[in-house]
């Protein structure tokens, strides 16, 4: 099982859009996938039309394995389940540890219903600084959307520094350019600079700024389902393939 986190310490960069489309692409290629919506706003749940679970907000929720497995919802897509939003960070910590430990009661419960997952995708909210280190340790890969602007460059730099100074595996970082606008000269220049500076930490695949992605909020469906032939859909597919390759899958 692989845990993949969509993370950025900057808001509004496309973490949720990435998590939703990656999760869908993973499930489509036959991997049993669980998308955990860690955002209290429930953005990714919203895209999958799943109502936020009331039970999930209750304290000590994740200590109760049965109630945890019960609040998972099947999406409308084969192989893809959603864990709706609203968990406390403390609970989430416990959750991560249990997902990692194959002998935990949680893993046993999932296996018992033949529902253990091949991939767990985390849609992280911005500002999870208290928790981020644990996410970095638990995850096999951290996918970081980067809008090619100077400000984003700084944020990515900070993230790399955090990894180095905290003895975290920098290889786990998989940055990619998000909301790329080909017409903007600034985007082109920044991307060139960053590729030079960060080399392998940046994936080749990039996601364009696209109206299909913007309109996901209207369709409430992943781009690969609502506009499978669009350039945006193809870009997510390429991102999915490259990421699997980098994770050795």
């Amino acid at each position, binding site marked *: 099982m692989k845990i993949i986190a969509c993370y950025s310490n900057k808001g509004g960069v496309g973490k949720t859009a990435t998590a939703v489309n990656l999760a869908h692409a993973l499930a489509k290629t036959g991997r049993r996938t669980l998308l955990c919506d860690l955002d209290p706003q429930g953005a990714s749940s919203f895209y999958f*039309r799943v109502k936020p679970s009331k039970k999930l907000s209750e304290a000590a929720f994740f200590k109760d394995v049965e109630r945890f497995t019960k609040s*998972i*919802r*099947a999406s*409308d897509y084969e192989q893809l*389940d959603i864990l709706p939003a609203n968990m406390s960070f403390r609970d989430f910590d416990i959750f991560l540890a249990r997902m990692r430990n194959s002998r935990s009661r949680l893993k046993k419960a999932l296996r018992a*219903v*033949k*529902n253990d997952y091949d991939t767990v995708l985390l849609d992280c909210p911005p500002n999870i600084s208290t928790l981020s280190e644990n996410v970095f340790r638990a995850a096999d890969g951290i996918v970081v959307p980067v809008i090619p602007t100077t400000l984003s460059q700084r944020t990515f730099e900070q993230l790399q520094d955090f990894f180095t100074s905290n003895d975290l595996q920098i290889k786990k970082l998989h940055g990619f350019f998000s909301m790329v606008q080909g017409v903007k000269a600034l985007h082109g220049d920044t991307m060139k600079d960053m590729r030079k500076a960060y080399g392998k930490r940046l994936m080749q695949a990039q996601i364009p700024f696209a109206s299909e992605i913007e309109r996901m909020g209207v369709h*409430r469906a992943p781009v690969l389902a609502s506009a499978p032939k669009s350039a945006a859909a193809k870009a997510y597919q390429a991102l999915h393939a490259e990421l699997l390759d980098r994770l050795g899958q």
Partner: protein
Amino acid sequence: MPQTKPLPTVLPTAAIEQLKSTHLGKLYPRTLAQSEAVDAVFFDTFDGHILQSHHLLTWHRGHLHLGTGLQEMAQVCPQSPGFVADLPQGPVKQGLGMVPPLRSLMAMGAAEIQDLTLAYIDDEGKTQARLGLRILTHDSGASLCLAQPIALRGYTKAIAELRAHIHELGANSPGWPHLYETLFPGWQNYTAKPQVDMAPTTPAIEMVNAVIAAHIPMMRQNEAGIIADIDTEFLHDYRIALRKIRSVISLFSGVYGHQQTADLKSEFSALMAPTGKLRDLDVYLLTRSDYAKLLPPDLHPGLAHMFARFSEHRAAAHAELAQQLQSPAYGAQMKRLEKLFKKGKKLVAGPRSGAPAHDFACSLIWKHYRKICKIAAGITETTPDEQVHALRIQCKKLRYLMEISAPLFRKSDMKDVIRPLKQLQDTLGQFNDYCVQQDNLRAFLGTLGPAERKENIAIAQTVGALIALMHQGQIAQRAKVEASFAAFNSTKTQNSFQTLFNSQKEPA
């Protein structure tokens, strides 16, 4: 929650429109997918093993599909399927373990198949449950629909509501056991164990009439399969039905008048007579591989020649019987017999005709049981074989008696006494088989023809070896008889017979 899929519910097709237009609480249905219709032929054994195990086997476009209705597996099958063993390798062949190896698959009927999926959607546009529907339509317009609710994880309430809804819609539908009957007009259910209604106080003549009336149609249902030579079970079942009829007449003697009994006995014996040869040859041919295992390789050519002869003889015996079953005289005779026992009026009653079935059965079972004990008590290692044969015949009679009158007793009680009897019969039956085989093989030797023909010599050698082997087998089984009877004659079984069949009468 283990995810074993429950069986789809059989619904009338009228339910589909209703389903498409009915909200399920706050959920509304939407058609998610609809397949194109395909024409398929439904296959099963004559006695419906596949349907009984809640599966459907269909054949279309060179493929076999097997499933519990909606989920299925498929494999290539260019030719219309017959025996499972002859199918090409594949998942369907593997999944057909419920089909007895001696039974051939047959076309039950053809119907059009169309699949439809409904999604039940909430106010957010999220699907909370799905419903798989498979619509089966026969040319005549007869149709039905299989409905399988599909749960989505986390939406327990929606699936519970959907299941309840389906259950309600299907409450009055005939259900799985009658699926072929509903879909294929004129389709007749077949069972090798026809149900015979009888009560403890039923007059014996009515009970005997009912047993016969139930088994004549069973004979008749097997005729077409014998004639078409679909598999050997048709003749086997035909003979079982006939044997049941003959034994009920002779065992419950006194139910019909003396002359009537004699007439019926000879009429049914005459019907049985032309079936014996074919059945014997069937058994030989079915056990061919067992013989090969018994003999060294140098005797195999003789064995091959022998079986080639058997095949020829079988073809002739089959042709003869098929002709007999198709003759107008036979048809008229069976119609007459059917009517005779259905109405029962023209049958001449005998002195025991009014005896209550239960008491009559008890006294007969007790009598035969005592007889068995008496014969067995006299059997030692040195007693002549005739006594063993006499014991076997009595055991057989007792077994028929108990099986025929089983509906008059508690099922579990009957099982408890039939089981030990069965074990004793196994030994006696095998002993008898070895004897009969030797007789048959000797008779076959007599038909071989001139010794100049090389293959006749080979056959004679093989037959000689087989006779020796059968004789060994006979001796071995004979040695087991005493012990087998001792096992049957346990205190427990003695008590069971006593309490069940002789409770108010003489002590054992």
